[in-house]
């Protein structure tokens, strides 16, 4: 433990972090150049100011000398020893076939090594392995989750003189105190002063060196020859020219014979994928594979840093060994998939929970991998399409979904990378309902109340009868506020200020039947899936059993039921059962129900409403100021909307429903319309090119109309002549009799009257009937089935004023106006 921080510290000291301001430059536009994602800080700024003495590379050491006793046991998992039957050979064949392109003797080496290792592995399979979270190896600390360079060849002698510090490509001196800039194309480093003409500052955006620009324009360029004849390649260059591997350390362990091993998850460079380097790949891009191998610690060279795009954009001073990884590459299906960031967090959380999960999934891995390998072999020999060897159907869950790894893009689509978002597109993205806002404005009071309620309930020893009923119209942030409260509480649990609890979230509308809720709750609490009757029995036992003194064991459980009104059955037993549990002395259950209607408890049986209706929280509809604030908070920093336009949208929505989703959708639709306008209409594109297109009142108005108005007026206007006459006759009949409903016989009389007195041909009853039915199909009319013929009842579905408005100034039939 003692020397670990020291090495780290000295490393950190040696690198001087420095921040740069940037001037805007226009990126070259003659070819598609992917811009570094979200580059607020650019990778090209390289600040390896002083030479770091490279730690003696580990490869020359014999195994026994490396076996330093790891000192940080306290970080190791609580149950450090268990047996796992990993067959380390499994991923190797594909590995060797894929990676080996240049030399055959490597194959031999690997082959040898593999045999050796598998023999060894078989021998010690039964013995115990010690798993660690951190291992100090050669004075460098490696922990699970780090990324490292791994030697590709055993005999690589050149690795000895592996330089840690990159030299300037022109003067061949290490960077020293001077700033170096990295070409975004060839990744060579240059001193600012060595460039022709010399640069003063690091420019913003992507920068390409003179050599590359010259080469692109067709000229033959020679880089200056290094003074000592042989240029040393950095680890990064070796990796990118596939002489090294990069791997992610999944786990570390010590074998029984004292050697240290780690489980590596390989990274792969774009050239090694099936689709090769794609034009929009970044130079420093790597792909994570789903390919694992057990590797001895000896073959590690040193750390490198593989980051997701966000970290990559932020990273400033990690030096040369920084890589970007956004996608996972499936070596079996040769497809790409984005790595979900949210997921990783979740998994971290789960890992902290218990080792059993981790353990078991480790244990199951060899099987699947064997399987994969086997199938891959099969596929190669037959070259058939998808293998049908999957034993499990994809949609029957039983704990996991099978075959999802098949899904993936064969290539990363270009538009994902090479597209610069305009302000409008950014606005559209932030206005999406799915994007979680950073903050929830205007719901502070309600959130405080929920927090107080839950805290009170958890801290209370008995927590008797804790039910909260939350109601409010849709789109007022009920569920979202509650979930954000839960997130806040979770961080408090992590900090240790409140005791842990479990949280079960159920949506009433997603249950197949109300009784199904027992199954879902039971599954969430215990992990087993049983029928609802059995689940109800076990839940009853769990919540009401007083004899078992397991008070300490049971965590308080928060049960969130969204769309509570869906659980109302005929005898309301489901709701009664659920709301009765909190009243049991040892249940430690807190029920929170969310629904739209305010008076749901009153509609229920008294024994239920007395259990639920005591504590309520109302989410009122947003008023226009709040809606405006919500929209503005999302659009912060994006200049795409006129201020009045937002106000107009929020006023309109506040007047109708106060639904935040609606307001956001209107704004998004308005942005879409504006975007469409400037993209598709060539006459307006000039203004789009010169100035920015702002979303104005007109767009918002169109969006509002689209959302709130039925398009019946347009349909009536464009319908056939006879249907217009038909509708006019309907209105006429309505005014004459004062009755909304009429029969087809009467109406046909009126229509034939109209026609004969105005010189139109009366087409006959059957055609008229058909026209009426067509109108009924569009629900402009409400009508009975046509089989009733002359007795068919008809009624206008829209206000007669709308019909009059639509028909009044019809050009085809000017005489209609006199009947309206």
């Amino acid at each position: 433990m003692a020397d670990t921080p020291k090495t780290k510290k000295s490393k950190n000291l040696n690198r001087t972090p420095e921040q740069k301001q940037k001037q805007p430059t226009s990126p070259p536009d003659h070819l598609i150049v992917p811009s570094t994602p979200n580059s607020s800080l650019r990778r090209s700024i390289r600040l390896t100011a002083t030479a770091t003495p490279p730690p003696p590379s580990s490869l020359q050491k014999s195994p026994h000398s490396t076996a330093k006793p790891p000192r940080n046991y306290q970080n190791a998992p609580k149950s450090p020893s268990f047996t796992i039957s990993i067959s380390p050979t499994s991923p190797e064949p594909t590995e060797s076939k894929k990676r080996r392109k240049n030399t055959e003797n490597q194959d031999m080496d690997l082959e040898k090594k593999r045999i050796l290792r598998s023999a060894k592995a078989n021998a010690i399979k039964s013995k115990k392995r010690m798993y660690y979270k951190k291992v100090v190896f050669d004075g460098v600390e490696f922990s699970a989750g780090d990324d490292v360079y791994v030697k590709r060849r055993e005999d690589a002698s050149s690795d000895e003189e592996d330089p840690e510090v990159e030299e300037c490509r022109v003067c061949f001196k290490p960077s020293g105190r001077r700033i170096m800039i990295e070409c975004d194309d060839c990744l060579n480093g240059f001193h600012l002063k060595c460039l022709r003409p010399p640069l003063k500052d690091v420019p913003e955006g992507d920068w390409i060196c003179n050599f590359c620009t010259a080469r692109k324009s067709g000229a033959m360029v020679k880089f200056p020859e290094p003074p000592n004849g042989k240029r040393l390649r950095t680890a990064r260059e070796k990796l990118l020219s596939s002489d090294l591997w990069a791997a992610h350390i999944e786990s570390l362990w010590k074998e029984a014979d004292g050697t240290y091993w780690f489980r590596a998850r390989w990274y792969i460079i774009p050239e090694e994928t099936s689709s090769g380097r794609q034009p929009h790949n970044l130079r420093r891009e790597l792909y994570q594979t789903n390919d694992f191998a057990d590797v001895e610690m000896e073959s590690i060279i040193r750390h490198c840093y593989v980051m997701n795009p966000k970290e990559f954009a932020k990273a400033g001073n990690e030096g040369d060994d920084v890589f970007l990884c956004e996608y996972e590459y499936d070596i079996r299906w040769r497809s790409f998939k984005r790595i979900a960031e949210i997921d990783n967090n979740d998994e971290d959380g789960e890992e902290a929970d218990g080792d059993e999960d981790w353990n078991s999934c480790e244990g199951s891995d060899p099987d699947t991998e064997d399987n994969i390998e086997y199938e891959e072999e099969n596929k190669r020999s037959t070259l058939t399409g998808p293998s049908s060897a999957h034993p499990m159907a994809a949609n029957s869950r039983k704990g996991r979904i099978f075959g999802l790894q098949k899904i993936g893009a064969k290539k990363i689509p270009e538009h994902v990378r090479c597209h610069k978002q305009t302000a409008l597109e950014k606005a559209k993205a932030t206005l999406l309902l799915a994007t979680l806002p950073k903050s929830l404005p205007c719901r502070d009071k309600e959130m405080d109340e929920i927090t107080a309620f839950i805290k009170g309930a958890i801290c209370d020893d008995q927590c008797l009868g804790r039910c909260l009923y939350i109601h409010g119209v849709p789109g007022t942030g009920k569920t979202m506020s509650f979930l954000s409260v839960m997130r806040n509480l979770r961080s408090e649990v992590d900090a240790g200020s409140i005791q842990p609890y479990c949280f079960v979230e159920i949506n009433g509308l997603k249950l197949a039947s109300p009784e199904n809720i027992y199954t879902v709750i039971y599954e969430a609490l215990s992990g087993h899936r049983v029928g609802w009757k059995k689940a109800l029995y076990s839940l009853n036992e769990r919540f009401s059993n007083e004899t078992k003194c397991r008070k300490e064991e049971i965590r308080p459980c928060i049960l969130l039921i969204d769309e509570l009104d869906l659980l109302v059955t005929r005898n309301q037993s489901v709701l009664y059962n659920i709301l009765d549990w909190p009243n049991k002395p040892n249940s430690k259950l807190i029920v929170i129900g969310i629904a739209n209607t305010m008076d749901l408890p009153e509609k229920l049986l008294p024994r239920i409403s007395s259990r639920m209706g005591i504590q309520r929280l109302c989410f009122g509809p947003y008023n226009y100021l709040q809606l405006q604030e919500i929209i503005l908070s999302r659009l912060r920093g994006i200049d795409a909307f006129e201020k009045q336009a937002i106000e107009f949208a929020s006023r309109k929505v506040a007047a109708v429903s106060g639904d935040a989703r609606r307001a956001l959708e209107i704004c998004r639709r308005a942005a879409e319309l504006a975007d469409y306008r400037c993209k598709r209409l060539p006459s307006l594109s000039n203004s789009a090119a010169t100035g920015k297109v702002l979303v104005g009142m007109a767009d918002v108005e169109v969006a509002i109309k689209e959302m709130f108005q039925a398009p019946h007026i347009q349909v009536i206007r464009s319908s056939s002549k006879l249907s217009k006459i038909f509708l006019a006759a309907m209105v006429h009949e309505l005014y004459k009799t004062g009755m909304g409903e009429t029969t087809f016989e009467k109406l046909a009389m009126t229509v034939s009257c109209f026609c004969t007195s105005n010189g139109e041909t009366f087409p006959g009853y059957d055609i008229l009937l058909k026209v009426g039915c067509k109108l009924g199909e569009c629900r402009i009319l409400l009508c009975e089935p046509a089989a009733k013929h002359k007795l068919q009842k008809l009624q206008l579905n829209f206000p007669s004023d709308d019909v009059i408005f639509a028909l009044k100034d019809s050009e085809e039939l000017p005489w209609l106006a006199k009947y309206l």
Partner: protein
Amino acid sequence: MARESPAEQAQVLVKSRICNPNFIFSIFSNPPDSNYSKLKYIISSSLTEACNNSVLLLGPRGCGKVAILELVLEDLLEEYPDMISVIKLNGLLHCDHNCALKEISRQLCQEHQLLFSKMASFDDNAQFMVSMLRECGLAHKTIIFVLDEFDLFAQGKQLFLYSLLDAMQSVTSQAVVIGISCRLDADQLLEKRVRSRFSHRKLLFLPPSREDTERLLEHILLLPTNSSFPHEYVTAFNVKLLKIFADYKFKEIVDTLSYSDSTVNHLQRFLFSTVSHMDLKSGLLSLENFKAALSTIQRQPKLEVLKDCSILELYILVCMKRLEAKEQELRNFNAIMKEYKSIHDTFQTSNYYARNVCLRAFEHLLQRELISFEDNRGHGQSAEFRPVKLLISRPELYQGLKSYPSCPAILHKLMDRDG
């Protein structure tokens, strides 16, 4: 097999054009304010910007909602290969939520070559859908759900729509829900919480205007000049057609056609019948063909049924009519027989048939739906005693009698008397 003559080939070509909605609607795809480009923009922008969207295509039947959508999807599949999976559901088949989700899983499995299990429960399928949405989103794939007859999905508790739209409320998913409905108030049918999750893009499909109809006619009927047909034939055909198009009589025909129904669908059927009437000897379309097609397409089924009736049946209908005019309460077979008898007694007609013959005529009328029982109750009762009502109005009956070739004069007189 003998080589077909150019006329036959031309007929086949035009017929196949008429039956291919993609061809017909391709002329509507150019202008920027067309539904085609709007829809394409909505879908492709949600493709490239990785967002969720939902659109409703509304409009009367036969205006090309599905056809335009198919065109757009076809283009997009070409433009972005391997990035789109289309799931098609129909409200008539999958209005039940269980069945809809199962169908989605089935199509997803088929699309991605996964094994599908029929036994999976609602929960399993819902979970499968959610995780598929996520995985596809991560792989930059968009799932497009096409819900035909959207209004039928909005029955009942709308569990399916809710779970579908709620699954789309996540950043990782990329999906577009396209609802197609001829009900203009389809979005009002949604429950509040479902509506709140629906992004209300609406595209309205309208019947083509007069000018569009003319363009469409030329687009469909004119033969291509650069094809395998003999050159002289093509020019002759096209010249003849253009002459017909310019004729005012033809314009009248189009007017009468669009007078009652101006949708593309209607036009299509009209043209198909025209082309079927084409004279294969000359190989050219004539005005008579169009006229003949118009008369076949504007049928008057009730009048035609009347024409097929026997004289006795006409008697029964007139009797019914008289009973209705007298506003007699109970109108069943016995009452009709009484009336029939009284007519016979007063006018001494030659057509008097026995009761059982009349009963058969009566039953025949029932089958023809010229009359029907008043209500559905009393199935046990024999037909003679159940009250019946007339399903044909007086003017129609009058017209029918007039056009009946050998109608007894007495019936005309009777009709005139009470009218």
